[in-house]
């Protein structure tokens, strides 16, 4: 267990990462569904979801999908600001919330640049995507990865140069969401579109 986003910089241990190939994503939401059932996520909240953006005008239009998971940042601001140390970064980079310690103050929600956290309406505590560390520790892939029918999602150890994810990240042009914010996110995307990550401006958002 480590705190305050100060992971040791040695590359001997594991560093989990996720790669989502948006060229292969068909927006089927199998990942969202697998996540919902894996964790019994309450109604009205989501640990992972697929944002859909339409670009262009018919007939020259295309729909883009952006599956969103927790980025398990290298410098997670949620871990920095959690007043009770309930947000914890593991040695392997996975950030999770201790459900017995969280008081539901929502500071992590206020500061997370990716908006992936929510308050569980039944328990009053913060929850988010954990990259299924209970499955990963047992040698399995996260639930969303296993559910993806087009194999658009890849999960593994970035520090192992022979692992499929390390090779894919090395050999492809990858992008992360909001690199400028300085959290060093570890959910990588291939084919990330500008329109898909732009936050909706307030004029457009009003119906």
């Amino acid at each position, binding site marked *: 267990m480590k705190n305050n986003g100060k992971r040791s910089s040695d590359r001997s241990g594991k560093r989990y990462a996720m790669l989502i190939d948006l060229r292969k994503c068909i927006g089927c939401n199998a990942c969202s569904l697998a996540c919902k059932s894996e964790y019994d996520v309450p109604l009205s909240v989501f640990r992972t979801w697929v944002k859909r953006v339409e670009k262009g005008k018919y007939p020259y239009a295309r729909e883009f999908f952006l599956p969103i998971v927790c980025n398990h940042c290298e410098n997670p601001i949620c871990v920095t600001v959690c007043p009770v140390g309930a947000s914890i970064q593991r040695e392997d980079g996975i950030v999770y919330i201790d459900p017995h310690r969280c008081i539901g103050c929502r500071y992590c929600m206020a500061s997370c640049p*990716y908006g992936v956290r929510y308050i569980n309406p039944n328990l009053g505590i913060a929850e988010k995507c954990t990259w299924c560390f209970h499955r990963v520790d047992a040698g399995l892939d996260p639930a969303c990865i296993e559910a993806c029918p087009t194999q658009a999602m890849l999960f593994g150890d970035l520090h192992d140069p022979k692992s499929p994810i390390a090779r894919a990240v090395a050999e492809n042009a990858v992008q992360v969401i909001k690199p400028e914010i300085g959290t060093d996110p570890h959910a990588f995307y291939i084919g990330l579109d500008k329109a898909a990550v732009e936050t909706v401006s307030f004029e457009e958002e009003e119906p």
Partner: protein
Amino acid sequence: MDSQVLYNIIPQEAFGLFIATYFYLTGLSAGSFILSTLSYGFGFEKFKPLGRVGIVLATFLLVLAPLFLLFHVGAPLRSWHLFVYLNFSSPITWGSFLLILYPINCIIYGTFMFLEKKKPTRIFGLIGIPLAIAVHGYTGFIVAFGKARALWNTALMPILFLVSAIVSGIALMILVEMVRSRFFSKEKKINKDLINSLSKILAWSIVVDLFLVFSDLAVLSISHADAQAAAQLILHGKFFPMFVLLENILGKIVPFIILVVPRFRKTIPVIVAALLVIIGIFFMRYVVVVGGEFIPLI
């Protein structure tokens, strides 16, 4: 390029009205406390009538304020975690201690004041000043550490919060002192001299506040895309009525004119000015907290 979002989830509100109210009340408390120490801590005899009302108000408001935190948190029965599991990089952890130390110091200081023991009153008054500044300043850090939100993530935030705390505190003291001297003092008459001095301090504090708001906005509106969107939101968007009209025109510029023009500086206009300031600062907290998290992140 035309693009539109077809589906996205609506994020939950993180802070909202309760936290804005909490910031507002701690600000009023810190402002009242600082005014109460003008005579008992620094020896400005003119402000002596403010000493007792100031400390009573400061203590009362600071007991009231954390109740809003209890309403806000999802698991209030676990509040004791804040004192057992510490994370010193989190401003809320700083606050857990300040919210204990500051009211205790207020009570000690107030007790010595009512017992008319000059020296200990002075000592605890002076200890209280950094505490009062910290107890409100830390709330500015809470907001400023929310690095995802352009409106929050500025180093100006703690000082902006402090100055607006002092502004609202002085306005509140003007009202309370008028009521006290008019109805509860021996003379049953408003102390014009004292109110005039307070009015002047208030007017110039408003100028400092306006300058800070201006520098914040000026930098926001030429900064990165999110910052520009935030500046647009409060200047022209949904928060325009609250930010421009209620907070800055009615809450600062109008009271400033009333307070500096001698012709307007009569009892009723000063009451109006003080009320406008008190309401305006509430909207300042609301715009910062709710406006700050209004623009979606993803």
